[in-house]
């Protein structure tokens, strides 16, 4: 064992390696990405790792490997599970031979996602066991337990951390590589009665699964990841002391009350620290749920029987709360259970420490009445800490900083070229998932819709069916194109749509931190491989108009858009220029020009560059247009739109080529 400072995702990766994982596949997505990246960096000789083309491909690949007896892991973010849900829902019935862990990272907030969906619900829906860690350290432990359980039960198992677990760092003890379990797959044993899904098999296995989950619920009641901690009430003197700092304390006779807090994930960590630090007026029992499915019903029942009232602290869906409600219903327990369903806690967004602190203060200090059978809040007092702060001088306004495309980002040039070329025409611009969603920001304002990975290509066809006089565009990134846009193009060509596909090819998966994809020519195993050529794919599907152009050659780019968009049917433009944050040697060679300069004599302060491009490197300093040299990459786009030629320097030798 040795100590490391690890991000939760890194801890999960090292836990999987310690469990002898053989095959790992996934698709990048915040907050899950670093799991697979860490496995690639620190893998053993017996680990295969890949970024698959999408989550469905990853899940199916992992299933095949698991049928062969390999220990496999598949990684994705919560919306990725929607893509992978088709194989998942059948795999549930078939099961696996080698241990299979499905790592799905949820994103309360949401901070970097389209939805606040809850994978714990998905686990219940798919009837698959689910672990929900409350720290990086617990995630490290749970992933190893998940492999063991998966193999023992012959079923895929979920590990479902949330953003604060995935991206939180912690110093923790991990195994040395010599201590890793070595797992040697037995190989696939043909047995069509086991591996081929048919209605009869599904019926038979459905019964077994229900029975298994009932047994697991019982076993999980004694699993250390589910627990009840007792906190005694403070001494009367300490309570008196604390009352001096707390306002609006309700009248209460609380000598015999026991308040229950049920918590999961990061909310458990918040609650634990608060309870350990706070002077407690009542006895408190803290229930931790580490396995939301199957729900540890026996443990929950004992908890409910020994507390007078319960507050649930969890994020996203009221999964744990529902588990408690169901338990209370089944065993006729009258313990009041408060949480999201009673609007006692927020129904959306993430729980913060401030929220948990305030809630617990209110909850633990307000008045209660108890008739011996049920307990309820006695009055509407809401205790809060006294503050000594006087009315402070009003703070000045803070700068608003929405995320924007980077200075020098080629997407800015691509969007601008389309905007200029289509000015005055009736258009709809369907966006997609990636950095280029930020093309929606002012002043570009070039993303009219964004739904989910690959949706834009099909949506553009839908708009065209209703409004045939509209020029319909779909913008899609290179990685998203491979992940889920190709079938959309096939659909468009086959069904005789009229649309322009714009591929924003920056030679990487930028938003999630530069992962390779089929168009980049390298893999996570470090191999250099043939690039899959998007232009050839499009021509293979049947497009006859496909043009590749460097978006930073603005005039050529605008002309290309005007010409191509006027063609009938499905046509495509590939805007090719590497991500400005990409640090490959070839990409770096493209930006050796240094920042552009403003010629003060020529600049008439019309601010066209600022108004039309919204580049973070173009700023106003002392009322005048200026270049922030720490940000400018010298892409030269602003130089090309300056009406008086007042900007010089920047990239003059622009060539379209392979830059990854």
């Amino acid at each position, binding site marked *: 064992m040795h*100590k490391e*400072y690890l991000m939760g995702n890194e801890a999960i990766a090292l836990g999987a390696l310690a469990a002898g994982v053989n095959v790992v596949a996934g698709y990048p997505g*915040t*907050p899950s990405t670093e799991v697979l990246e860490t496995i690639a960096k620190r893998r053993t000789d017996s680990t295969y790792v890949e970024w698959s083309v999408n989550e469905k491909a990853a899940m199916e690949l992992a299933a095949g490997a698991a049928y062969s007896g390999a220990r496999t892991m598949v990684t994705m973010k919560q919306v990725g599970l929607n893509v992978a849900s088709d194989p998942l829902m059948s795999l549930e019935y078939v099961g696996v031979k080698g241990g299979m862990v499905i790592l799905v990272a949820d994103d309360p907030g949401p*901070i*970097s996602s389209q939805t606040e969906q809850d994978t714990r619900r998905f686990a219940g829906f798919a009837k698959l066991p689910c672990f929900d860690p409350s*720290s990086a350290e617990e995630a490290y432990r749970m992933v190893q337990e998940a492999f063991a359980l998966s193999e023992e039960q012959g079923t895929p198992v979920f590990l479902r951390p949330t953003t*604060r677990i995935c*991206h*939180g*760092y*912690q*110093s923790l003890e991990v195994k040395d590589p010599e201590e890793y379990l070595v797992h040697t797959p037995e190989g696939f044993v043909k047995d069509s009665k086991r591996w081929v899904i048919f209605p009869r098999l599904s019926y038979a296995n459905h019964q077994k699964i229900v029975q298994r989950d009932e047994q697991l619920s019982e076993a999980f009641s004694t699993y250390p990841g589910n627990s009840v901690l007792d906190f005694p009430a403070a001494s009367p003197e300490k309570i008196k002391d604390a009352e001096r700092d707390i306002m609006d304390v309700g009248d209460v006779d609380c000598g015999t009350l026991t308040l229950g807090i049920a918590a999961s994930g*990061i909310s458990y*960590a*918040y609650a*634990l*620290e608060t309870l*350990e*630090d706070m002077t407690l007026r009542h006895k408190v029992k803290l229930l931790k749920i580490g396995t939301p499915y199957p729900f540890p019903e026996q443990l929950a029942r004992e908890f409910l029987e020994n507390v007078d009232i319960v507050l649930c602290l969890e994020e996203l869906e009221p999964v744990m709360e529902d588990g408690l409600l169901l338990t209370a219903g089944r065993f006729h327990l009258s313990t009041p259970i408060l949480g999201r369903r009673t609007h006692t806690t927020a129904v959306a967004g993430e729980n*913060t*420490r*401030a929220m948990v*602190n305030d809630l617990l203060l209110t909850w633990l200090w307000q008045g209660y009445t108890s008739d011996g059978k049920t307990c309820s809040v006695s009055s509407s007092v809401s205790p809060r800490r006294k503050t000594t702060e006087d009315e*402070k*001088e009003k*703070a*000045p306004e*803070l*700068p*608003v*900083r*929405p*995320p*924007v*495309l*980077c200075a020098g980002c080629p997407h800015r040039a691509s969007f601008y070229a389309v905007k200029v070329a289509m000015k005055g025409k009736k258009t709809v611009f369907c966006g997609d998932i990636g*950095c280029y969603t*930020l093309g929606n*920001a*002012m*002043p570009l304002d070039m993303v009219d819709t964004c739904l989910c990975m690959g949706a834009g290509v099909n949506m553009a066809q839908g708009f065209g069916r209703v409004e045939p006089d509209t020029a319909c565009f779909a913008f899609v990134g290179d990685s998203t194109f491979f992940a889920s846009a190709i079938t959309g193009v096939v659909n468009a060509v086959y069904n005789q749509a009229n649309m322009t596909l714009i591929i924003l090819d920056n030679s990487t998966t930028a*938003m999630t931190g530069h992962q390779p994809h089929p168009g980049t020519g390298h893999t996570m195993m470090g191999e250099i491989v043939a690039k899959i050529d998007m232009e050839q794919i499009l021509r293979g599907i049947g497009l006859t108009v496909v043009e590749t152009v460097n978006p930073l050659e603005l005039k050529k780019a605008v002309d290309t858009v005007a010409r191509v968009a006027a063609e009938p049917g499905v046509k495509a433009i590939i805007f090719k220029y590497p991500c400005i944050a990409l640090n490959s040697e070839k990409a770096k060679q493209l930006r050796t020009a240094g920042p552009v300069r403003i010629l003060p004599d020529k600049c008439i302060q019309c601010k066209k560059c*600022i*108004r039309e491009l*919204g*580049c*973070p490197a*173009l*700023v*106003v*300093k002392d009322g005048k247009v200026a270049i*922030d040299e*720490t*940000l400018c990459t010298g892409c030269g786009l602003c130089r090309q739109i300056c009406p008086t030629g007042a900007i010089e320097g920047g990239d003059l030798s622009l060539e379209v080529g392979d830059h990854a």
Partner: protein
Amino acid sequence: MRKNIILTGVGGQGTVLASKLIAAAAMEKGIPCMSAETIGMAQRGGSVFSHLRFGEGVRSPMIAPGEGDILLGFEPGETLRMLHFLKPGGQIITAIRPVIPVTSALSGGDYDGRLQLEYLKKSGYPILAIDTDQAIRDLGNPKVINVVMLGAASETGQLGVTPEELKTAIRNRIPEKLQELNLRALDYGRELL
């Protein structure tokens, strides 16, 4: 002893690296650490933060408002944004160089960080304002402002780790060709006090 440090800035200013260097220095002494930071879309020029906590009894990486011992801000507006995290008497260490947001340039706004800095100075908290414009000129590199700030913070004696411990962390964590520059930046920050 528990230490709660809030680091804040604009995406790209090296908030995360600064946080990791402090954590590495603390871990070297065997102190348990936790931290959390902004990752994802907001890194593209948005407001970013890192919460860093070490010592016994820390259960989660997040700092609650009013709990911070030190607020280390790489941009004056961002420092002010996080001020409520500081406990009474907590130390502010802020850069004075503003990063002008695109929204400000577009709307004809006049944000330059001066008002925010003035407010911080009058806030009643002990404050150390670092002339980061001068530091960029003297060091010739805007990318090491984070380490300049760390140097100043460690010199106050309140960071929980010493300048020497941070130097060891720099030697262990930063690629060799950048070490000299970062060590120079750290010393530059220390000498500002």
